[in-house]
């Protein structure tokens, strides 16, 4: 498997096929002399901002500290929660089990639901 070609930037689907983001980064552990091991996928900020540049990461950190869902750690998904790879990366877990939708939920709750008519079409 080629990590950059087959995993990085692919769309992430949870077990119910909800789009929960894209693979914005890979977390690799290195222990002493043993082979490096991919342990997690990272989703959304700050991984995604770091890929634009350090300035974007700092800016996002600054804004995130004052505004938004204020989730604790960056969203990571364990390699063992991956079901299979293909056009998308399919997971065995539900989006509820992660904080990947924190922004979607926060914007929905704090902004969209306060505008009339956002709940139906």
């Amino acid at each position, binding site marked *: 498997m080629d990590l950059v070609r087959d995993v990085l*930037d692919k769309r992430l689907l949870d077990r119910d096929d909800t*789009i*929960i983001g894209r693979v*914005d980064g890979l977390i690799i552990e290195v222990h002493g002399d043993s082979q490096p091991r991919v342990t997690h996928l990272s989703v959304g900020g700050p991984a*995604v901002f770091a890929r634009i540049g350090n300035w974007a990461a700092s800016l996002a950190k600054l804004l995130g500290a004052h505004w938004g869902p204020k989730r604790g750690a960056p969203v990571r998904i364990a390699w063992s929660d991956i079901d299979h790879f293909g056009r998308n990366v399919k997971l065995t877990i539900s989006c509820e089990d992660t904080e990947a939708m924190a922004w*979607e939920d926060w*914007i929905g709750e704090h902004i*969209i639901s306060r505008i009339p008519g956002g*709940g139906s*079409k």
Partner: protein
Amino acid sequence: MKKILQLALGLLTGIGGFLEIGSITTAAQAGASFGFQLIWAIALGTICLGFLVEMSGRLSAVSKQTVVDALRSRFGFRFYIVVLAIVAAVSFLVLIAELGGIALSLQMLTGVGFPWWVVPVAFFIWVMLWKLKLDLVENGASALGLVTICFVVAAFRLHPHWGSVAHSFVPSLPTDNRAKYGFLAVSILGASITPYLMFFYSSGAVEDEWDESYIPINRFIAGSGMSVGGLFSIAVLIAAALTLRPAGINIEKFEQSALLLTGALPRWGFVLFALSLAFGCLGAALEISLALSYMFAQGLGWNWSENEPAQRDARFSLLYTIMIALAAIPLLFGVDPIQVTMISMALTAASLPFSIVPFLFLMNDKEFCGEHRNGWVSNSVVVIVIVIAFVLSVIAIPLQVMGG
């Protein structure tokens, strides 16, 4: 049965949704300044657009992904973000122009200055996206856009010399005013080849769950929809050449350029011109607002269905809300929509290599298009037109800027 309906609706979108402020303004200016001579540019741009729209539908039918999805997956984040920045910036300018076009048409109909119309117009567009499903938004606007057929009627009633019209499909250079001629050719190409349309169309294909069985229908919709649309643009140019040019009117105020229709349709021409502008721009403004949101949402992995209530795809809905609001601001301060149009059309042409070349790589990639990859004909047509548009824009835009 479902496919026949989709075929009809696809044609409706191609025809009723083709003319907007960019194609009307550039074609009218070309006709007013150079007679029939620039018809070749419309033909060239429309052919290229037809190929590109067909490709984006085919990509989505085969790979079940939108163009933006595929761009990010194939080229990675850093590349995607550069393409996104360029295409989004240009498309945003076009959105300003389309909002301005609707506001201008209301100014024509009521006499109340266009800045007063900007807020109600922006609100109306936003409500349509907020409350209506994709099919209704798309087909409703396109059905209203059918009023633009009045340009075709006008062109026929003015009895152009069809021999000279046919002759103008072959490019030629004017004896003087070449800088302006080049700039208009670039603007026409930019007005015809609109990358946002590809993103919009491929998102629609994914929402409608196209599969490979849609490839023939897609080809027919793209081919015939775009060519009839292109004929509408040519009709605008012909009408302008036969009415505005003899009167010495250059399209700086739409009130004057309504003569384009009043010459052939004295009673209803003025109202029809305003309505064509309003409905044409309405369809385009809706498409661009959605396309802008699709570009971000699909690339970043957000939910993005226009068929879901706003609550279900909060980030996507917030994005078009912000875009429409931002686009209204410069118009409130009286920025001239026709100038924004001319600038944004030329910039679209200059930006084409950045949006189209990566797309062509996708269309030749086995992983995305399998056995339905591009053949040499479609590759060559698009590459040739993009190169022409880019070279012309690199020459003509600086000349236009320096010449004022």
